[in-house]
């Protein structure tokens, strides 16, 4: 492995370059995007049109629009014309309001074969924009491993060959930060995007976005995890992206009304200061604050989503992770984020793998990672979870997909679908830490059964049926993927609305569109299909908006203003919605209201649905979900919650006492699957789609996205 900083500095060989004068930012936009063709070594600017801004706003919207133009319906994820597009939105990079440094990444996914979007913290997106680029388009494939360097200070973009042979993303980030910085002080001006060897060896590769943490004197990383974007990155022979920008001020976006932004910021900083300790405790626990709650409410995935809680859940509770995280240190992944939730475990000594015995900084675990790499594998050891989290990140593999697909493998193993002979000797029972960690290393390094596991669930199901004669129906029931993407880590069985939140999500079952479990299952606030459909319209649209702007969702509702509980629509956190309206108007000088905010999202959301259609997906049949997400698949699952399920059957007019458990499972399933079909009907109606899930022409027209090429796609499905 070539790891020396000096070696990186001296081995840099420029293959292509472009000098430019960084466009000044005006009202949140630079008005330019950077296009790089890796096959041709071409680097050139493009103009961001007014139409793009009006229709797609920015962030994910820009990513979708560029990708739409780049690919055809026949394009596959590993074709050269596929792109990775990275963009912050117009609000991205402000430092007055928490959670304003997100990058949005869009590509064709290796696991879904359709559109993937993933949002990520770290400094890259804001620095990219302040270096003069609203978006970065990466197309083509390089012949050799390359690094793209954007120097926003000098106005130069170079495509370089650099000797940097390591499959460990944390080292790539560290070395490149040090090599490109002129001094210790300069390190905070560098952000690196990279991945690890797992992205070469699996279809679930992720991208790490870095920033330098001067308090720890360490490089930190956040992850664009979902859907194999890192795998696309490595397929293009990209080793890393590096941006350097040293001119950060509070006003780089050149906002129209700075005071308006400041006012909103001061308000929420005070709320975080006053209430976080008695609300979510984001500053102490990050999103791991949910560990105890999810276990208490039977929502924590245990052993491949069979169960929602476990007596040993207390060993990986919120309090346990608080005790593991370094406290009383600023943990924002962008400047000005007083929510400070990207917790870390410092000086963690690794027990396994290529870095065994080394002490490292582990970013997280966040809730998703702790549930994915712990309870869902039947493992309740926090140190194991921290170690698995570290290795997923540095190998560059998605923690959520790794967690959900390992849980699937374990259930297959326990059911005799695969055995020790197939797994190369690994006894992959639930709870077997040693075997699970070994398989993780095999995935990261492309060895043994790890090569099969790295195919992810959809392809593994096909493989197990073809090679080992597995029952396809059973695998469909227990394989927690939809559209080819692994489920994120919440049990949705008892919440029909959340089943839709996962199943109807554009990119696949990720909770970033909607998290409705409390509103539905606990609060009983959305009892009718129409109520659920309204929630499945409003919340996905509202949350899509964060991805257009470069914003993080967490400050919206993981802190709440004092008077929120008095309000009719407390779940929407109306005061914070108004903050977002004010910030957008303050930056851009536009005059939107909360209704136009939703319309901005609707344009992009519906465009993404049509884009899915264009790629051969995006209809009712693609919104179907595995039954494990809807109810008890097995007798054992039913009997573990028999009182609850028997009670529900009584309400439906059955007499559970006179039925066998098999009969009860069957009628329960029939009922729940019917309910899901009715839910789809209601949601499609509310969203202005046909009963087959296709956006109607009048819907597209009303949103102003009825361009000829969009209409052409839709007409084929009406």
């Amino acid at each position: 492995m070539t790891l020396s900083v000096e070696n990186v500095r001296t081995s840099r060989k420029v293959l292509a370059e472009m000098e430019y004068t960084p466009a000044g930012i005006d009202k949140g936009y630079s008005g330019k995007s950077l296009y790089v063709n890796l096959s041709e070594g071409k680097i050139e600017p493009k103009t961001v049109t007014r139409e793009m801004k009006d229709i797609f706003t920015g962030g994910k919207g820009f990513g979708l629009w560029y990708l739409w133009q780049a690919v055809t319906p026949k394009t596959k994820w590993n074709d050269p014309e596929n792109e990775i597009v990275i963009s912050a939105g117009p609000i991205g990079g402000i430092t007055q309001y928490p959670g304003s440094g997100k990058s949005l990444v869009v590509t064709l996914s290796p696991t879904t074969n359709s559109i993937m979007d993933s949002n990520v913290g770290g400094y890259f997106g804001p620095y990219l924009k302040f270096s003069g680029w609203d978006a970065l388009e990466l197309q083509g494939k390089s012949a050799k491993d390359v690094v793209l360097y954007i120097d926003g200070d000098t106005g130069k973009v170079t495509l370089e060959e650099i000797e940097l042979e390591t499959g460990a993303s944390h080292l790539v980030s560290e070395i490149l930060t040090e090599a490109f910085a002129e001094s210790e002080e300069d390190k905070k001006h560098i952000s690196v995007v990279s991945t690890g060897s797992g992205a070469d060896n699996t279809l679930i590769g992720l991208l790490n976005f870095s920033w330098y943490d001067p308090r720890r004197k360490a490089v930190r990383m956040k992850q664009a995890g979902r859907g194999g974007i890192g795998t696309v990155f490595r397929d293009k022979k990209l080793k890393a992206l590096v941006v350097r920008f040293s001119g950060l001020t509070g006003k780089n976006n050149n906002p129209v009304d700075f005071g308006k932004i400041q006012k909103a910021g001061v308000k929420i900083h005070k709320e975080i200061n006053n209430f976080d300790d008695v609300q979510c405790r984001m500053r102490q626990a990050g999103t791991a604050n949910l560990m105890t709650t999810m276990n208490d409410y039977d929502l924590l995935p245990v052993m491949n989503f069979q169960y929602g809680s476990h007596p040993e859940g207390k060993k990986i509770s919120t309090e346990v992770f608080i005790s593991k995280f370094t406290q009383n240190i600023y943990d924002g992944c962008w400047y000005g984020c007083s929510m400070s939730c990207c917790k870390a475990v410092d000086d963690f000594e690794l027990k396994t793998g290529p870095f065994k015995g080394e002490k490292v900084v582990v970013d997280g675990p966040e809730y998703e990672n702790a549930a994915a790499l712990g309870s869902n594998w039947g493992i309740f050891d926090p140190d194991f979870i921290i170690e698995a989290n570290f290795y997923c990140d540095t190998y560059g593999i998605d923690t959520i997909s790794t967690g959900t697909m390992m849980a699937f493998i374990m259930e297959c193993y326990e059911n005799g679908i695969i055995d020790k002979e197939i797994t190369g000797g690994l006894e992959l029972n639930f709870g077997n830490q040693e075997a699970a960690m070994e398989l993780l290393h095999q995935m990261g390094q492309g060895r043994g059964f790890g090569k099969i596991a790295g195919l992810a669930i959809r392809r593994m199901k096909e493989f197990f049926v073809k090679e080992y004669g597995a029952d396809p129906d059973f695998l469909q029931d227990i394989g927690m993927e939809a559209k080819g993407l692994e489920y994120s880590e919440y049990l949705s069985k008892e919440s029909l609305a959340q089943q839709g939140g996962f199943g109807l999500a554009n990119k696949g079952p990720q909770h970033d569109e909607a998290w409705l479990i409390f509103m539905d299952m606990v609060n009983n606030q959305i009892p009718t299909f129409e109520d659920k459909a309204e929630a499945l319209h409003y919340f996905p649209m509202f949350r899509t908006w964060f991805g257009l702007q470069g914003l993080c969702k967490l400050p919206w509702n993981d802190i709440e203003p004092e008077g929120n509980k008095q309000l009719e629509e407390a779940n929407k956190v109306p005061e914070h919605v108004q903050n977002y309206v004010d910030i957008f108007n303050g930056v851009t000088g536009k005059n939107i209201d909360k209704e136009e905010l939703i319309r901005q999202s609707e344009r992009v959301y519906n465009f993404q649905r049509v884009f899915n259609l264009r790629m051969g997906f995006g209809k009712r049949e693609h919104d179907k979900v595995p039954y494990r997400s809807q109810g008890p698949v097995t007798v054992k699952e039913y009997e573990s919650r028999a009182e609850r399920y028997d009670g529900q059957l009584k309400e439906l007019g059955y007499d559970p006492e006179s039925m066998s458990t098999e009969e009860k499972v069957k009628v329960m399933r029939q009922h729940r699957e019917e309910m899901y079909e009715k839910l789809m009907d209601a949601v499609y109606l509310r969203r202005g789609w046909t009963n087959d899930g296709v956006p109607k022409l009048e819907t597209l027209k009303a949103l102003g996205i009825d361009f000829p090429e969009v209409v052409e796609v839709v007409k084929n499905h009406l």
Partner: protein
Amino acid sequence: MILVNGKEVEYEEGMTVKRLLEKMNYTFPMIIVRVDGKLVNKEDWDTFKIPRGAKVQALHQIAGG
């Protein structure tokens, strides 16, 4: 009986809001409680007695990753 979020829950004599939340295992830190439509502030949960037959809303403010 009382109704909690629309579902029947067995009533206990002298049941306070705090006791009800314990009984339901409602441990989430951001809950709004209304009894027969009237907001009960958190500082009163320990003392506020829920009447028999009451309609209780224990609204968990939305969260999630």
